[in-house]
């Protein structure tokens, strides 16, 4: 910028003028401002008075370990750290090379881990957890730098993500009597279970949902009716009833010898449920593809499968990324419903903490803490999704 270019005039508004325009523009605005201001001040005073004075936060700090990894055996906790380290590194690499919203997401992963490091340090449940979280946050940063310098090819990162998902699941679940002994799903609980349920739910339901969406727009009536019936059936009933059905009826539907445990049943229920919602998101993306694209593909001699594979789906799926991030957020929040069928995810662990005799009467502390954890995760993700939406220009086309 040369010195000849003038900056736009900078309008300075004094505090009085600002108040006048924004709070006291008319008489009813003035009354409204005063009333709401007074109410707000009262609420903030009451809440901060409680949070600083009366609240017994020791209930939270004493049980921090339960909240985070539940009853996962302590000597096996390194498996979760290793998992987190891999995800942190990959998130950093992706964020570094992609930039934009993905970088925001990677940064918030690092920020969340710093937050947990702080929470663990305050709780005094051992230095190891804090150090591990700090190391992970550092790893995100290393990944970011590495990604920005393009030290790792994009293809490797993509393959890394694809491999890491099943790998981390196996790492948590364990295999028989090896170096990573299997951990009974009864012990999966806390934030760990919340993440596992939401991630498995979205990953497994995604391909199923895409198939359903294509089926709903198929030219073959039988396929269309079947897909539509499934989607509307699932969307017409509450998730709790599906979880309840999965808990009781899934074992009955399987051949006698095959037994599946409760966590797997809940995952099955969540997958069946969210597939219908993924399908509706993807259908939105499919409808946004101009008919000319399909006609051009046919004119080039591509058949139905190739048209979908190379022309329609790449464009449609790109357009529905923000909607699917939104779905993941609501799925993350919906995992709380598995408490109703007796699993101990974050909210369920909160309830079992409240059942301890020392925690009597600390409902507000425990539930506010659980709500705050959900808020941090879901707010960070929704901000990233807004940025993603803006960078993809979804709303503008």
């Amino acid at each position: 910028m040369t010195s000849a270019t003038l900056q736009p005039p900078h309008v300075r508004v004094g505090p009085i003028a600002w108040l006048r325009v924004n709070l006291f523009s008319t008489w009813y605005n003035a009354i409204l401002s005063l009333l709401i201001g007074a109410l707000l001040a009262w609420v903030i005073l009451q809440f901060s008075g409680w949070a600083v004075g009366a609240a017994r936060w020791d209930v939270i700090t004493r049980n921090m370990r339960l909240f985070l990894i539940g009853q996962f055996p302590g000597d096996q906790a390194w498996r979760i750290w290793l998992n987190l380290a891999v995800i942190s590194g990959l998130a950093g690499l992706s964020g570094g090379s992609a930039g934009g919203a993905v970088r925001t997401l990677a940064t918030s992963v690092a920020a969340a881990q710093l937050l947990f490091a702080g929470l663990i340090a305050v709780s005094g449940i051992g230095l190891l957890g804090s150090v591990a979280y700090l190391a992970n946050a550092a790893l995100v940063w290393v990944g970011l730098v590495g990604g920005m310098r393009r030290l790792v090819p994009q293809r490797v990162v993509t393959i890394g993500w694809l491999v890491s998902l099943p790998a981390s699941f196996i790492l948590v679940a364990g295999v028989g009597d090896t170096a990573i002994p299997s951990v009974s799903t009864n012990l999966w609980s806390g934030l760990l279970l919340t993440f596992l349920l939401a991630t498995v739910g979205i990953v497994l339901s995604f391909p199923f949902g895409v198939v359903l969406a294509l089926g709903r727009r198929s030219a073959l009536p039988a396929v269309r009716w079947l897909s539509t019936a499934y989607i509307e059936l699932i969307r017409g009933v509450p998730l709790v009833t599906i979880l309840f059905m999965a808990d009781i009826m899934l074992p009955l539907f399987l051949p006698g010898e095959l037994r599946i445990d409760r966590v797997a049943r809940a995952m099955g229920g969540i997958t069946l449920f969210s597939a219908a919602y993924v399908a509706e998101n993807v259908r939105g993306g499919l409808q946004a593809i101009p008919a000319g694209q399909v006609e051009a593909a046919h004119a080039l001699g591509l058949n139905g499968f190739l048209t979908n594979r190379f022309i329609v789906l790449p464009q449609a799926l790109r357009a529905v990324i923000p909607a699917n991030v939104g779905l993941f957020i609501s799925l993350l929040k919906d995992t709380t419903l598995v408490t109703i069928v007796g699993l101990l995810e974050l909210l369920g662990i909160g309830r079992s903490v409240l059942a301890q005799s020392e925690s009597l009467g600390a409902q507000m502390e425990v539930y506010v803490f659980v709500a705050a954890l959900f808020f941090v995760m879901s707010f960070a993700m929704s901000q990233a999704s807004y940025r993603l939406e803006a960078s993809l220009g979804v709303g503008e086309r």
Partner: protein
Amino acid sequence: MNGSAQEVRGARVPPWRNERVLRVLAQAVVLLATALFVGFLVRNLTTAMAERGLSLGFGFLDLTAGFDIAESPIPYRSTDTYGQAFLVGLMNTLSVSAAGIVLATILGVLVGVARLSTNWLVNRVASVYVEIIRNTPLLVQLVILYFAVFLQLPAVANAIELPGAIFLSQRGLFLPAPELTPSFGRWLVFVAVGLGVAVAAGVVAARRASAGRPTRRLGMIGLVTFVAISVGGWLLAFQAPIVIDLPARERFNFVGGMGLSPEFAALLFGLVLYTAAFIGEVVRGGIQAVRRGQWEAARALGLSERQALRLIVFPQALRVIVPPLTSQYLNLAKNSSLAIAIGYPDMFKIGVTMSNQTGQPVPVILLVMGTYLVISLATSLLMNIYNRRVQVLES
């Protein structure tokens, strides 16, 4: 195009390349695969159910339920049948959903308008509310409201009294309620007559307006007549047709007025607060979707601010608002099933109790899911009809 199609036909396409044959074949394969899969599941189900002595029949609905239900809008005793108990659950679900939809719509519209307010404080408070509600799970909000707020309220003796004779205590929320007296029927006759006059005046006014003749304020005259006749009828009746029944404190509970149990109140408030945040965003989006030029054009035509809002902006915003509003209503009805976490006897909770007591979970699950499906389909049908009426305005 035509020529090439004939060429293709002339070349005698073999059946494995013939698109019509392929389409039929593909559908047959899909149907067969689905039928086989469903058949496999059903066979497993029947063998598993036979092994465990479960049945698919609905005969248990005529058996005696034998459990009590804390609250019920229809008469119910533990000696009634399971069918009656299920009906109680259905009524409870419907009543909390209906009340929730009405209140959430009112609060949601307020929130949506507040988010567009030029008042900085109003605007900020509304957006913080929306962000907090939308980023935390509904179930967590419900347990906070029930276990940490409603159950921690003071006992009846120290009940919190809010202006307007509203009492909050461990027993729940007590509000003044309108009560009809015997003279209500007589008063209703006056109201009906007034309404008839008003409607007649309105019809005449509309006819005159469409014929291009002056309406001579007939609509206003009709309205005034209606109000005058109704008020006159109220005064002429020997006693007031409607009296306000105030809740009164007794030793262990309140009597009179309208009492909401802590479970019902927590569920209703939770659902309303949650859904209103989403409806607020829907309303804001709808109003913002109406272009600024529409306001300007309305002013240029000489319409007043109110007329512009009523005749130009609102109908267009409604068109954008109604479809997502429908799904919010459906979500509210479905979310009422979370009542089980706080012990409100809705349809799902009673279904679970029935399934535990009868030991026949399969038909109970089918019954509960089927009923939710019917409620959802009926709501979306009604809202689709309304939506079509709103959309017709375009022509």
